[in-house]
């Protein structure tokens, strides 16, 4: 029986000099679950991911990992405790090889170079980038960059993975592949996935639950079909221009 991990976001508020980016958001995620986080631009999605991954301290509220607050954790100590993330911009080390980009996360957690390379190679193999392992990361197309970012986040089997708009700029075909990958992350690593995404098709198909933010506030939470028909969600996406 696999241990059940929990990640709770409890009444989190973030203010930047009077501007409220997130307003008392509460949500929770357990192992093996895929949660979608959607909302229009500027809704506060990335800010929330920053809070959960330790990049941003909440003004109020807290994030609890297996019941323990993460208030004093740095991004790296949280990474060690099993919370990994990807970045919208990819943020790969462009002058290092694809393999090294993934391996560096293992080396950073104290593995030897050889052990990190072996694990990185397995991940690249799984994600379909093994033939490109020795290319310089800067030479990769945008969509491959995103996949390398995902492989890097999965080094050392985290309990939770936060994917920040992995489908941005992808074609329908690439989105299908991404969805397969996201489900595979859950099945293979047993971790909880928080998927931040603009692409509705991806979110609706792959997520079991969806959390909708608008201007920092929660406007809907629940199953995809319920969220899809929620008047507040339709208004946020279609109304007001």
């Amino acid at each position, binding site marked *: 029986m696999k241990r059940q991990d929990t990640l709770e976001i409890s009444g989190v508020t973030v203010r930047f000099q009077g501007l409220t980016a997130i307003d008392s958001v509460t949500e929770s995620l357990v192992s093996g679950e895929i949660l979608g986080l959607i909302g229009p631009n500027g809704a506060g999605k990335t800010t929330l991911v920053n809070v959960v991954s330790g990049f941003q301290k909440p003004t109020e509220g807290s994030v609890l990992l297996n019941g323990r607050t993460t208030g004093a954790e740095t991004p790296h100590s949280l990474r060690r405790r099993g919370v990994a993330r990807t970045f919208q911009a990819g943020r790969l080390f462009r*002058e290092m090889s694809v393999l090294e980009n993934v391996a*560096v996360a293992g080396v950073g957690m104290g593995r*030897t170079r050889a052990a990190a390379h072996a694990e990185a190679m397995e991940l690249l193999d799984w994600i379909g980038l093994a033939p490109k392992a020795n290319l310089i990361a800067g030479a990769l197309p945008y969509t491959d960059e995103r996949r390398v970012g995902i492989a890097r986040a999965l080094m050392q089997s985290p309990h939770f993975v936060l994917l920040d708009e992995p489908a941005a700029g992808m074609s329908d075909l690439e989105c299908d592949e991404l969805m397969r990958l996201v489900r595979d992350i859950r099945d293979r690593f047993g971790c909880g996935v928080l998927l931040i995404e603009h692409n509705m098709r991806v979110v609706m198909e792959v997520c079991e639950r969806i959390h909708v933010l608008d201007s920092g506030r929660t406007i809907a939470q629940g199953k995809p079909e319920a969220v899809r028909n929620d008047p507040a969600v339709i208004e946020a996406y279609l109304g007001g221009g």
Partner: protein
Amino acid sequence: MAFALQVLIDGLSLGSFYALAALGIGLLFGVLKLINFAHGAFITFGAYALILPSAATEATLGIGALPAIPLVILIVGVVVALALLSEFAVFRPLRDSSPATLMVGSFALGFVIQNLIIMIYGGRPKAVGLWSDLSAGVTLMEGVSVPKLQLIIIGVTISLMLALVFFLKKTRWGIHMRAAAEDFRMARMLGVKADLVIMLAVAISGMLAAAVSLLYVVQTGILDFRMGVPMMLFAFIATVVGGMGSLVGAVAGGFAVGMLSILLQTFLPSDIRAYRDVFVFLVVIVVLLMRPQGLFLSSAVRERV
């Protein structure tokens, strides 16, 4: 043919100095975003460490009188210690400041070290005879005779570069360092130990400075408190020409500037040969006008989306 080989070896050996110094500067720029104008003072300090402290005009060898292996170890140790001391006293407290502040700080540090040398050793140049038998010529082929030292300089430089490449590519700490050089925040998030990586880079930079100190003293036989400055200046130009932040660029830039100097030295009419450096800088300006980002673009300075 013989003439071309002679010029090539002259150019490579001068370029070696610039390339080694440029690597020392480029490494710190990569990891710390620091343009270390104290690097020249590191080089000078390493050279003076060979002799006993005294203001007398005649230099008495101290460390310089030891056999080669302990001599090299001690000089490298002295310069690395100075570099690490600089890291703790100057660079680390300024780490979160702007690159401009760091640069001015390194300028000040350079002056402090230079004046320390004047205080301890006096301001007049001193003659030092270290390993003078290395100046003996070696005949490579009919009509080409070069000092043994030039070949040693080129050999040492290439070996140090290969060692550095091996370290950066094949060791765990090298991976840490390259990641930190490209994206410090991201590297930190992935667990790269920032302080350790920076100290390591500073120490390696000190080692490279020490190599320049030794080779330069053997070649010129003169100690001067300003000796490291032109070296650093040319090395800095080499890193700019090569592309700030790219180590390959720093090395290529160093060799290019060295080669160019020797070519000008060889082919300029004798009455304007004294103004060789003017022409070197002229070429550098033209190169930068055509490729402002340097010959080798590095992601450290590439604009991010």
